[in-house]
């Protein structure tokens, strides 16, 4: 089992087990969820920034905020991605700007789609994965977040899109992190949602709870600790590690 560095201080140390070195399992899918304002997007951005710094390409589907806003949010933590946009290490699919009436200039690695048009979104994901795959057979992939997709589509449709999306990115060698705000859908859909992922990370503002399903080893690992959001992003507190196996 190969894990990749999460880029979140303390996270990789917390997730060490006899099966893996710690970090996020490569080419797996992770749902990051929790109440609003608990750092899910920050986690996502920190994760891809860590990859970009190592020249690992990234496919970023943004559905809550336009690309400019994502860039500004990252700048708050000194994660500057302008160069990665310019040299096309990052590939953006913006699923929201045109819905909010924003003008959007399509470039090679910045394309527009719409959360209300799942077929088109998947076409863009197809083109995006091909683009990223051309430069590297492993990459990081963000979908932030499912909330807007749920707002614009019936629940079952979002599950269908998600299945297609997860299949597409993992086949291409992507390690996927998908954000979702707890309570947006009914408990049944939430259960189904979680079942689609290899790993889940729950952030509640104080604690981070990680669950990894190592299907190959028929084993589920869970870890917990507290965390804080600092000026440099999320930091997992190393003094309170709990491996709950």
């Amino acid at each position, binding site marked *: 089992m190969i894990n990749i560095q999460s880029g979140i201080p303390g996270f990789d140390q917390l997730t060490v087990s006899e099966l893996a070195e710690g970090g996020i399992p490569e080419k797996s899918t992770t749902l990051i969820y929790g109440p609003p304002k608990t750092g899910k997007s920050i986690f996502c951005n920190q994760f891809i920034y860590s990859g970009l710094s190592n020249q690992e390409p990234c496919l970023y589907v943004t559905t809550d905020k336009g690309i400019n806003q994502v860039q500004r949010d990252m700048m708050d933590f000194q994660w500057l991605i302008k160069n990665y946009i310019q040299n096309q290490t990052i590939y953006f699919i913006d699923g929201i700007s*045109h*819905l909010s009436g924003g003008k959007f200039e399509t470039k090679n690695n910045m394309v527009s789609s*719409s959360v*209300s*048009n*799942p*077929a*088109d979104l*998947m*076409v863009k*994901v*197809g*083109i995006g*994965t*091909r683009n990223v*795959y051309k430069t590297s*057979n492993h990459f990081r992939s963000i979908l932030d977040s499912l909330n807007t997709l749920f707002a*614009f*589509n*019936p629940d*079952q*449709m979002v599950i*269908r*899109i998600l*299945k*297609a999306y997860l299949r*597409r990115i993992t*086949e*291409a*060698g992507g390690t996927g992190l998908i954000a979702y705000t707890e309570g947006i859908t009914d408990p049944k859909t939430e259960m189904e949602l979680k079942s689609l992922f290899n790993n889940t990370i729950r952030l509640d503002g104080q604690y981070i709870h990680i669950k990894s399903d190592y299907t190959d080893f028929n084993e589920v690992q869970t870890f917990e600790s507290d965390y804080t959001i600092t000026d440099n992003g999320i930091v997992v507190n190393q003094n309170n590690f709990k491996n709950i196996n």
Partner: protein
Amino acid sequence: MKKTHIPKLDDFLGGGIPEGSSILFSAVPGVECETFGYQILNGIIEDGNRGFIFTNVTEPDNIIYEFKSYGWDLEKYLNEEKAFFVDGSSKFIGVPTIGKYSINELNQTEEIILKAIEDIPNGVGIINNLSTLIDYLDEDHVIKIINKLNKKAKANNTILIYIFTKWDYNPELIENIKNNVDAVVSLNSIEERVIIGQGFMVTNASWNHPDNKMVLFFVLQPGGIKIYIPKLLVTGPYNAGKSSFVKSISNESISVDRIALEKFPTTIAMDIGHVDHDGFIADIFGTPGQERFDLMLDILAREAVGAFIMVDSSAPQTFGRAKEMINKTQAEAIPKIIVANKQDLPGALSPEKIRDAMKLDDTIPIVPTIVIEDNGVDLAMETLLKQLYGD
């Protein structure tokens, strides 16, 4: 019968779509499907008919914009009342509705589309997107709606085009939908970990027996749907005119050559061109002709799907070499034509004489050309396309 205006599709459908029929474009997620509906609408309106677009996935403004990107003027058709929208999207995303009809409640969908069909006898209606409808309404209900719409369309001679994304639905539902339309075109992906190509195939048509042939396609902006031919080869003896041919046939081309000690420039690596011809696009590779470069013939020819074998009609002494090159590029196994170039030179042999001299059977067409005058080049392309895809 109405033409779809999608290259090859009309042939596969036996000429087009009969008035009053319904056709389902069923796409694997990730394959471009909306363009099929839009291109058909655009073509059928251009032919003097009327049409509408029902959308529940994106606002009319975006569709107008998309048409523009293909080079089609939907706005003009809207103004001339040749086209109209059934806007089933705007209301649900909270923007003002546009169009002749708009849907404010989901349960109005059927009734309003029925009205739209009635408005355009002999026209065409695009339903984009059927999948989204399924998840909003329940499955049985959607089948009932399809039936009612098709019945109305039949009575009114209106063609209905359904755009459908094959998400992970229950296979029975997909089967059921397919059984409730007159024809099905499958839009598939060709994958090697990522989508590397897209293809379409008519899998069912009540008025014709489709031959289950899949063709690759690309969506160009501008341009729309084009049949994609990954690789065509141009080979033949030295100085037969291969580079000129690639240049003449291509919209863009590049040649790796140099002026050799001989006074003619000669290709020392390859010619590469890109052809856009009558709904087809192809990448075209020209080989060098000189024997000292034969080691690369095999590499350049790999994965070619069709070949132009160029000969200098006035130089029968090179025909043996041409046959040798067919062999070395393994072009025996792929559709090919002989391009009998330099017909203007004294002593140029006629195609039939070339056939005798090269001992070729009748299945291989020979097209006379004068490439430097662009004479016969298009015919050569059309002839090879016929070899590849039939009439």
